[in-house]
Every structure is written in C-alpha cells, then in structure tokens.
C-alpha cells in the first residue's frame, strides 16, 4: 500500500474541471449535439400492458412527406430466447426485446416501431399512422398478482419448478443452519415489508445523436454511464462491428444506474443507416418514466432472532423483487447485502425475481440493497426495542469485523463498519435532545462495490503539463479526483492536470460507471501510468546527468539526483524535461489497462430525526447525519456530495416517491409534477461524517462511496417515524394520507 500521509492534493476539495461549463451552460449534453443533415427520430410505444403483436403496417407512415425511415423489430438483431448471451449483467435475449417489442408488447410504453423524419412533429405524426394489430392479453402489475398460480404468463418459455411462471429466478445465500440458530433465540421478530417502484430520477432524459456513413462507420453521441457499453450493445443489436462504432460520451445529467443500458441507440443507428441521415432522438420525461428504469417494487419478509443479551443468533430473509417485463431484478443486492454489516452465525437469504407487465427495471444506486436493508434494519429496530438495548449498541454488539465471514460469502479484511457505528454514537446529533412530535431513527447499510476493467493514458504535453484520458463517464466527480491523484504523484499543481473522458476509439476498454467502481479502478490505472511516466522522466534526467536511473528520484515536480549524487545537479522540472523530450527519445506518456482487483465493500450508519405534523400526516426530516467508511476521501467535497445525494434519494423513496398504476395497467404519474421527488425545500442540510479506513488493496486506499449512502436511508426514516409516533410503517412511501390514516386508526383504537 502506498497511502501517502502528507498529501498536498489528495484530500482536497479542488475546483471541479466540469464546473465552469456546467454553471455557464457550455457543457454539451447529448441533446445539445447537432450534425449537418440531422433528422429526428420518434418511438411508437405500446398503449397496452400486455398484447401479442399480430402485425405492423408502416406503409402510411412511410408515405408521409418528410419521413425518411421506419424501423421495427425486423431491423434489430434477434437473440433466440433459448440461448443466453450476456453482456455484463444484461442478457441480450431481453435487451433485443426491450429496445423493440418482438413477439409481444409487455408494458405500456414498450417500443413497437420508430420513425425518422425531417422534424419532430412529422415523426410524431408518422407514429400515429403506423397500424399495429394487437391481440390484447390479460396482465399483472403487482408482485402478489404476478405470482398467483393463474396469473397471465409474460414469457411462456420461462418456467419455475417445472411450470410456466412469472418467477424468473431464485437466489439463495446460506450460512450455517437457521433452524438451529432460531432454536437458540430467545427473542424473535418477523415482519413483512413492501416498497414501491421508484425511478432513478436523473434530470437529463435519454438522448442520442447517431450518424452512419455510407461505409458503415458509425458515430454515436449519447448520454450513458458507459460509452463501451453503448458500443457493445449497439453492435450486438445492429450487427455493426465494434471497430466501426465510435461511441462518444457526452456530459451526463445524472444516471444513478439507470443509464447502464441502451434504449434509443440501436433504434437511432438503424434509422440513420436506413435513411442515410444523422438521427437525433430525445426522450420526453413521460417516455423516461414509462419505459426506462425504474428500480423494483418489493415484498420482503425478514426474521431475526437473538439471545437476551443482544447477540443475534439467526436471520432469515425472503425478498421478492419486481423485474418488470424481463428477468433481471437486483435480487443479488437485496439478498446479498442486507445482513452483511453483521456477524451472524446462521443466515438464510433468498431472493425471487418476479416478472410483471411493467417496464424492465434498471440498476438504481446499490441495486436491491436499500430494499433489503429497509426490512432488516427495521426488524433490528424492533429487536432492540424488545431487548431494551440502544439500537446502535445492538448493531455494535453484532458488528462484522476483520475476519468475520460475511453472509454473502467472503471473509472480511480490515473493514470500517464498527467505526461508523461508533462515530454515529459519539456524534453530537445522536445525543441532541428531540422536540415535540419528533423522533430519531438509525440504520446501517452495506454495498459490495466493484473494480473491473479500466484503461488510462497519461500524456505529458510539449509545454510540460499533463493530459489524463480515462474511459469511464464522470458522474460523481472522477475527473476532479483523478486530477488530485495524478497531481499528487507528479508533485505539481492540480490545475496543470487536465482529465478527459475518451471515446471508445481513443482509450482502452473501460467498464461502465457503476458499482461504485470508477475512482477505485481509474485511480489504480492512472497511478500505474503516472508511475511509468515518472520512471521515464527519471531515466531521461539520468541520461542528461550521465548517472544511473536508480540514482534519480522524483520529488515536488522535478527529477533530483539521489543517494551519492544528491545535490550534485540542479533538479530538472517536468517543464524542462518536456522541453528536452524530442532529443531524449520523444514524447513522454504511458497507457495502462487492467482488470482491477481488490475493491472492498463499504459500510454506512445513518442517524435521522423526523418531525410529524399529526394533523396532516406529514413527515419531515429535520436532521440527518450520514456516517460512512469511505476508505480514502480523495476529493472530500465530492464524497460528501455523494452521501448527501444518496440520502436525498432515500428520503424520497421513504416518504413520497412511487409509481402509481391505474386500473388500465398504466403509470398514472409519469412526470415530476405527479411523481414526487424531494426538492431542496423538502430536505434539511444533510450532515456527513467521513470515516477513513483505507482499502489496503488500493494505492490511495480508495473504496467506492457512491452507492452505500442510499442503502440505510428508508429504514432510518421509518425507525425515526416509529420513534416519534410509536407507530411502525411496513409499507413505503410513508406519504401524508397513509400516515394520517394510520394515526386516525390508532386514535380510534384508543
């Protein structure tokens, strides 16, 4: 490990390189791009939750003046349903049917055709002229309906326990023997919880601009969390080889996991190919809400048993998560993360992936983990109450540590969970008195974090500055943090390091921005590349001085003679060595590509205070502190921002956000007026406590930080509401009408 303690830039909240452009409006998002001859694409979407497509007649649309191309499923590469083709966590069998309905339309909003025309209005008109012959089928929206024996089956080929079913998968994690564990328990709490589907809520809708040359060379500007993912999926779905697709990452207006798959790119590519014109497509908010993301709704049952001294002896969880129309809900996160903060001898955690006639779920910040944590952390709160133990003390007593075998498999190395609980207990917040109708709740959470493929180039410019190119779209501050890392290693001012995100044809493969991998992975490759650059610079100084390269060190932005030669020659700065580069072997730069290993999971513990307006049932979060083991805060401002953003999203999930379906199986609130994300005025200032237990497997000690802060939030809020009212809510969101009704029921019972 190479954690430098006396840092100049690592640990500083340096000015973010994208800040000025974003504040002044100069930043180019996908919807800002234009090309000569550009036309507009629009998608025709199914109005039905479930319908067989008997035929599509596009002739009237094609005849409309201004229409340049129409595509349907025939134009998209088909992946047969009986053979899985995986790309990352996505199965192309489902992707090819999600971007364009094939045999059946499976949710309202499912694309059935797309049109490109000289204006958006003509494209929209042409969509109306497409005649689709639907055989409308019965449908189901909610989990409990979809798993009934007589439920309408979405995919006839999908079977569970030998019968056609909407259960698309089951995952079981086992440690010890829960029956034996519960037999020893003196107190057992078992509860069932439900959460509603919520959208990632990125402000920028999906957008792309795609040109296909006469030679098949394709250029894509799009909003995504991975230009390489866009290239690979577009290649698979259109048949164009990856070498012919240049996917350029635009600035991204939020993703939160929701932009880890494609929706528009394959359609726009085929429209561009057919029409010979560049095609731009921009979703409306309504399309975003109806046809992209969200994350799963869920039903979870959690049972935890402990002895009277507060030692947890057994835990069991069953998590049903909605997948939407195609398999792939995040059961791994729900079943795999929920018990991970604790050292429990006997654990059984089961996840079920449930299909229903909703849009296919997409990743959302620690996918599945907040759902599981909501159930587990609320049960722990009840357990603490039953045992008359402080809820943080209960967590501390059962905390996972170095050497604990996690319920999801691994044996932990040095982790910082205990430190998060202690910091929460010792915080001024946890000791502060509460006001009238206020309550306090706590909860913890875990997320796996990830490493994986990452590439970077570090090039010294002719004038002695630095350009770093990495391959992961920057959503959470990776450019600013990378500048800190590179400047630290080179011993130069961070403003001399320009960090850019390369496109697919200019930088090596880099896995998409997800799993909280980016700074972990890219700091690792940038560190190696920078070290190679420093080695080259030292060699060149040695050549000039005619001494051994080993006798040269790099300090404070310059090569210096060391050892026996120390002080013999004046230092050679980066600028001087760049100036001499042509004569000393040419340009200085390095490129490193790795499949990075050693990502460690992250833990957080949150403290939440709420105040309830009992006349109206309104819950307001009045104070919030998020404590997290962040490994190493390379750019603390961004790390705090990640924690605050995660908490804001969790408060929305807890109190106000939900997909509301009407009796026709359609989303009734597909816009931000009716789908209630919290805004600044709904939230208090969110305090953070950054605990730094460095990751021993990373040169800067980095752990992923972006996803953990969403995991504990809903439970922390629910536990606070219970503390305020003595009334526990098992169903989210705890919206005013629901809270008022519960209060009235409680009052009537008295």
């Amino acid at each position, binding site marked *: 490990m190479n954690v430098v303690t006396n840092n100049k830039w690592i640990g500083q909240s340096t000015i973010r390189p994208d800040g000025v452009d974003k504040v002044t409006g100069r930043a180019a998002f996908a919807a800002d791009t234009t090309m000569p001859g550009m036309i507009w694409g629009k998608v025709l979407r199914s109005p039905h939750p479930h319908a067989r497509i008997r035929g599509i007649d596009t002739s009237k649309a094609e005849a409309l003046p201004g229409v340049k191309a129409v595509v349907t499923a025939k134009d998209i590469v088909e992946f047969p349903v009986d053979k899985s083709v995986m790309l990352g966590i996505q199965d192309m069998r489902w992707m090819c049917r999600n971007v364009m309905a094939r045999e059946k339309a499976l949710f309202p909003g499912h694309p059935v055709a797309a049109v490109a025309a000289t204006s958006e209005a003509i494209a929209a008109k042409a969509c109306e002229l497409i005649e689709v012959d639907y055989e409308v089928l019965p449908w189901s929206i909610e989990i409990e309906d979809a798993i009934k024996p007589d439920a309408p089956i979405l995919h006839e080929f999908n079977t569970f326990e030998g019968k056609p079913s909407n259960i698309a998968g089951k995952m079981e994690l086992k440690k010890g023997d829960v029956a034996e564990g519960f037999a020893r328990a003196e107190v057992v709490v078992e509860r069932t919880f439900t959460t509603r589907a919520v959208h990632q809520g990125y402000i920028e809708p999906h957008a792309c601009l795609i040109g296909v040359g006469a030679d098949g060379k394709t250029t894509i500007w799009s909003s995504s969390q991975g230009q390489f993912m866009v290239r690979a999926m577009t290649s698979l779905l259109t048949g164009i080889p990856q070498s012919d697709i240049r996917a350029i990452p635009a600035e991204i207006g939020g993703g939160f996991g929701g932009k880890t798959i494609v929706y528009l790119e394959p359609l726009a590519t085929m429209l561009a190919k057919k029409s010979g014109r560049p095609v731009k497509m921009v979703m409306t908010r309504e399309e975003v809400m109806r046809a992209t993301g969200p994350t799963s709704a869920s039903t979870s049952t959690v049972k935890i048993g402990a002895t009277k001294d507060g030692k947890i002896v057994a835990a069991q969880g069953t998590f049903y998560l909605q997948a939407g129309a195609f398999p792939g809900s995040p059961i791994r996160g729900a079943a795999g993360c929920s018990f991970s903060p604790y050292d429990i001898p006997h654990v059984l955690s089961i996840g079920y992936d449930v299909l229903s006639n909703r849009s296919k779920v997409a990743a959302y910040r620690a996918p599945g983990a907040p759902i599981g944590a909501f159930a587990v952390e609320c049960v722990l709160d009840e357990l603490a109450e039953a045992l008359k133990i402080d809820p943080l003390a209960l967590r501390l007593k059962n905390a996972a540590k170095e050497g604990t075998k996690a319920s999801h498999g691994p044996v932990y190395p040095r982790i910082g969970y205990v430190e998060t609980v202690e910091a929460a207990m010792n915080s001024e917040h946890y000791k502060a008195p509460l006001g009238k109708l206020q309550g306090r709740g706590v909860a913890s959470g875990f997320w796996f974090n990830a490493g994986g493929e990452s590439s970077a180039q570090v090039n010294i410019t002719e004038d002695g500055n630095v350009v770093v190119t990495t391959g992961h779209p920057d959503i959470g501050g990776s450019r600013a943090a990378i500048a800190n890392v590179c400047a630290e290693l080179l011993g130069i001012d961070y403003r001399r390091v320009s960090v850019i995100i390369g496109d697919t044809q200019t930088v090596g493969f880099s896995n998409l921005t997800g799993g909280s991998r980016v700074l972990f992975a890219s700091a690792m490759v940038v560190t190696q590349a920078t070290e190679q650059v420093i080695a080259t610079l030292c060699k060149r100084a040695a050549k000039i001085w005619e001494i051994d390269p080993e006798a040269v060190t790099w300090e404070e932005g310059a090569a210096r003679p060391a050892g026996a030669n120390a002080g013999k020659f004046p230092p050679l700065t980066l600028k001087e060595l760049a100036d001499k580069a042509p004569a000393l072997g040419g340009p200085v730069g390095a490129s490193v590509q790795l499949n990075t290993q050693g990502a460690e999971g992250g833990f957080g513990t949150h403290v939440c205070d709420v105040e309830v307006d009992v006349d*109206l049932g309104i819950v307001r979060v009045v104070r919030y502190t998020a404590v997290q083991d962040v490994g190493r805060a390379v750019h603390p401002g961004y790390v705090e921002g990640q924690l605050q953003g995660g908490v804001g999203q969790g408060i929305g999930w807890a109190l106000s956000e939900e997909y509301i379906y009407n009796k026709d199986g359609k989303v*009734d609130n597909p816009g931000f007026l009716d789908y*209630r994300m919290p*805004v600044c005025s709904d939230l208090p200032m969110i305090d953070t406590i950054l605990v730094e237990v460095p990751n021993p497997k990373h040169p800067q000690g980095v752990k992923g930080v972006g996803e953990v802060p969403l995991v504990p939030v809903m439970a922390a809020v629910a536990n606070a509401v219970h503390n305020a009212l003595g009334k526990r809510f098992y169903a989210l969101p705890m919206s005013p009408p629901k809270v008022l009704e519960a209060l009235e029921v409680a009052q009537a019972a008295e």
Partner: protein
Amino acid sequence: MYATTYHRPSSVEEAASLFTKGTDARYLAGGHTLIPVMKQRLAAPSDVIDLAKIPSLVGIDVSADAVTIKGATTYYDIANNAQVRKVISALSNLTSTIGDPAVRYRGTIGGSIANNDPAADLPAAVVALNASVTTNKRSIAADDFFKGLFSTALDDGEIITAVTFPIPAQAAYAKFPHPASRFALTGVFVAKTKAGDVRAAVTGASQNGVMRVAAIEQALKANWSPSALDNLRIPDDGLTADIHGSAAYRANLIKVMAQRAVTAAS
C-alpha cells in the same frame, strides 16, 4: 405549437377589437396555462392577444376601504407592494406562495381568476374577501364570478380590468401546496369583515373550483378561534380524489387549513 398571430395591443379597447377580428382569438396574460396547452397542440388559437403590456391594466391603488389591483398586475408586484401588505397582508402572503419566482414575475391576477383553475390560489382570496371584478363592460361580485371548473361569468372577449378587495378586519390564507407545482392541494382563505361578517373560501379541494363553506363561516362567526372548528366534520362529497389524496384527506385538509388560517389571522 401551431402557427398563430401574436398581437401586443396598447389599450384595452384595441385588445377587445383585435379579439372580435380573430377567428379563434385568445387573450394572453401570464401564459402559464395557454402556452403549455398550445405547445401540447391542445389549443391552436388564430390570434394571441397579449394583455400583459397594456399600461392601464397594471398597477395597485389602495384607499381607506379597499385595495384595487389592475387586471395584468403580476403576483410579484402584489406580493411586494408595501401598502397591500399593510392593509391585507393575507393577500401579500398568498401571492408570495404562488408557484416559484419565475411564475410570480409573469403570472397576473386577471389571468388567474379568468382561467379559474380549480387549484389556483387567488380565487379563494377573491371570494373570501368578497371582492368585485371589474371588466371592460361591467362589475361582477365575487359570488357571481366563479362558475365551476375553468369557467367564469366572463363573456367571450370580455377583459378583466381590475379586482377590488374591501379591506377586512382580519384575514389569512393557509394552503397545503402540491409540493412540486405549489398549486393548492387545498387552500383556505378566511376573512372577518369590519362589520363582523365571516367568509371562508376553499380552493383545490373541489373539482368545481373555489367554494364557500357555510359550516366554517357559521362556526367562526360565533367564535373566531381555531378551536371553534375542532368538532367540525367536513363531508367529503364532491371533493376531489386523485393520486395525491383521497376526498377524505382533502376534507381533513379543509378543516386543518381553516384552523391554521384563523390562527394566522388572529
């Protein structure tokens, strides 16, 4: 949006004359309803006649007994008028909570009440304060002006030139805003006149728009105090039920908001 002809008349007379010439003319005030509706291609007026820049339609006069606000005066101007705040602070407070700053710079009193959105705030003030609406043709009492969802007593082409609010003894408005739009999920305006009469107007709760609630008025006339409403049960018949709240929730909101308004007014 379909093509239209935009006019910016300099007088009420010119505006009215332009209206009669258009095949399907519409007046534009703040534009918060008309423009989105045109963008969604749900309306395609031949002529759009902008009233917001007519000098005689902008301004506020405060006399000993009344506040007169010209038709195209913006929410921002009403909210920030010191004289209005002094004599009817409830009106200042109400206008300062409409939408957001961008909305308040653009939206006008005439536009709001002519549109009569069932969740708009100003109709509650107009009714509770027993205001009179002056047009280019006549004067209309508040109780006769609002005719249910998006409809009013205005004739085709008639222009609201001013609204006159008698200065009350006490008044306040309490609303439960829709958290995203800031429209009233339910808002209650209570006013006690100098003669001791009480009026209470509710917006946002009924599909028919603003309404008076006799039970509240009677209870408050007998006892101008929030506790006077403690045992009141507002029936939920005819109240709006939607994804934001049931009729029963809105019925409770009427009571609670009325109590909070009385508290604020006292």
